[in-house]
């Protein structure tokens, strides 16, 4: 019946849901604990951040590559009774997708408030770089077309895409190295970051070659950690402690054709962002020109650049200029990965970049700036290193952020949020 239709509902549930709490463990190499213990630690931090009791959470979702602990265990530990849970297979770009699915679960009446988490010993157990036990398994079936050629790790798999971009557009190693340089500047002002040392372009291009075109410092860090965030509807979101980060739009695990061998299709230096942009900007009702701060997944320096380019933050082929222009720097026009991201803060399959943008939108990024008597940060907006009197990483006057999640050149997700 037409009278049942809520004509006030935003398109694609735009602005109807929010992230109300975020939390993480410390970023370590050698956590000395299970993914169950890490996961409960991160979720508890997110609950404390929001000020939400266990009794008001009834949904839980996670993703992993069989290297985590399932939701019901963590919920049980924390005294959360679940009306809904789902643990899926997935790595990078799953976080944004699960936020969309959490919205769907709530909208369908399956539950009311959902925790999304990722818990991983990415250094001390299942190594994200692919080394260790993972590298010695027999190769069969479809993997014969890749792993049998020593084409196995993420960096190896992506290298023809990265190399072809250099060939097609004249992108230089020094331009791309600026992604690491800038993220290292941001990480130096992040007390949580695993690598806080600022590096130079020379440091990057003179670091050990892993797989051309990737030097060691073009690759992300491997860490042990868990991360969590809490999604609920906007009508509940203001009942909790923090200013909600309102979700304008989401796109999840969007693919190029034939991702088992996407090198057959289209220009191989084009990535999934080319397809995502048409969904995410429609869903969110904004365009790249409205985005003030990005979280472009940096499994490698190149992944940030390729995505920013295909989402339309610059013209196709001009990604090298974009990332080396300084625009992505704190104090620049559109900072990227202000926490230091995967290259410096820690590797979480994308969750830490969303957490960072939630805190940015609150105006409460956890940098070295002091707090006032009401526990609010007094930001200096001085982005110099802390030892030079800086230590801030808050973006001023921030209204809209975008996360650009990456699984591989052929698959990605995106999330656009606004200040609540």
């Amino acid at each position, binding site marked *: 019946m037409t009278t049942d239709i809520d004509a006030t509902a935003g398109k694609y549930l735009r602005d109807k849901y929010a992230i109300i709490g975020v939390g993480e463990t410390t970023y370590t190499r050698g956590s000395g604990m299970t993914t169950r213990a890490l996961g409960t630690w991160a979720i508890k931090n997110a609950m404390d951040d929001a000020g939400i009791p266990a009794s008001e959470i009834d949904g839980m979702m996670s993703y992993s590559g069989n290297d985590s602990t399932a939701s019901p265990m963590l919920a049980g530990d924390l005294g959360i009774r679940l009306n809904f849970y789902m643990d899926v297979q997935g790595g990078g770009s799953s976080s944004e997708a699960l936020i969309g699915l959490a919205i769907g679960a709530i909208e369908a009446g399956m539950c009311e408030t959902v925790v999304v988490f990722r818990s991983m010993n990415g250094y001390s157990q299942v190594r994200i*770089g*692919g*080394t260790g036990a993972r*590298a*010695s398994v*027999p*190769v*069969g*079936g*479809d993997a*014969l*077309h*890749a*792993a*049998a*050629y*020593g*084409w*196995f*790790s993420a960096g*190896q798999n992506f*290298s*023809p*895409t990265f*190399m*072809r971009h*250099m*060939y097609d557009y004249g992108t*230089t*190693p020094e331009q791309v190295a600026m992604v690491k340089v800038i993220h290292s500047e941001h990480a130096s002002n992040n007390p949580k970051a695993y690598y806080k040392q600022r590096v130079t372009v020379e440091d990057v*291009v003179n670091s*050990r*070659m*892993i*797989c*051309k*075109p990737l030097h060691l410092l073009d690759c992300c860090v491997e860490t042990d950690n868990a991360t969590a965030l809490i999604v609920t509807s906007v009508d509940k979101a203001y009942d909790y402690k923090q200013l909600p980060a309102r979700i304008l739009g989401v796109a999840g695990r969007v693919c190029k*054709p*034939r991702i*088992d*061998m996407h*090198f*057959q*299709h*289209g*220009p*191989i230096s084009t990535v999934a962002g080319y397809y995502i942009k048409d969904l995410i900007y429609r869903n969110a009702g904004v365009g790249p020109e409205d985005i003030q701060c990005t979280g472009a997944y940096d499994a490698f320096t190149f992944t940030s650049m390729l995505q920013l380019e295909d989402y339309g933050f610059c013209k196709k082929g001009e990604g090298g200029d974009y990332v080396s222009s300084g625009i992505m720097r704190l104090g620049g026009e559109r900072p990227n990965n202000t926490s230091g991201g995967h290259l410096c803060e820690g590797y979480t399959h994308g969750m830490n970049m969303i957490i960072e943008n939630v805190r940015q939108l609150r105006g409460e990024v956890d940098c070295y700036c002091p707090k006032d008597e009401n526990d609010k940060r007094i930001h200096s907006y001085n982005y110099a290193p802390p030892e030079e009197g800086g230590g801030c990483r808050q973006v001023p006057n921030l209204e809209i952020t975008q996360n650009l999640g990456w699984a591989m050149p052929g698959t990605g997700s995106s999330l656009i949020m606004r200040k609540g």
Partner: protein
Amino acid sequence: MPQGDYLGMTLTVLDLDQENLAYFQHCADHDFHLQRCVDPECDLLRYPPGTACPWCSSREMVWVPVDARGTVHSYGEVHHAIQPAFRERAPYMILLVELDTQAGEPTEHEALRVAGNLVDADGNFAGPELVKQVGIGSRMRMVFADVADGLSLPQWTLDEDAEQPEAPWRYPQEVNGV
């Protein structure tokens, strides 16, 4: 079930994996074949082996011989090997070779781009002198590395009979002598 040791790795094709069985059997015969869609409206080849036509969804196909020569479309050059089997072979190249057959079809950016390592004419992994000669634009021909009955891997070597570009495009920074 074709199974064998290759560089210290166990490679296997399961008996129920009909698509890969046929693909690697043709390679074992040193006679490269790909699947061709039998729908006359489509008629396109595809790679890697699959269970339907990615261009028209037809499940009907036939294996046909394909001229296995082409041009390096892109590559990776591994200096820090991850798999134990490859540690002694680094630096080694992962080549993506665009076959002449069906290049630019069905659209200008589509092609059959077949993966493989750079090997010499005898099928041995390329040493640094050979690696230095190969980049985007190099003309390649296929050779086969025999692994077991019914299982050989296609690999790539420089095509001695083809005209090679004066300087194929290579990553600008030389490292470890390549």
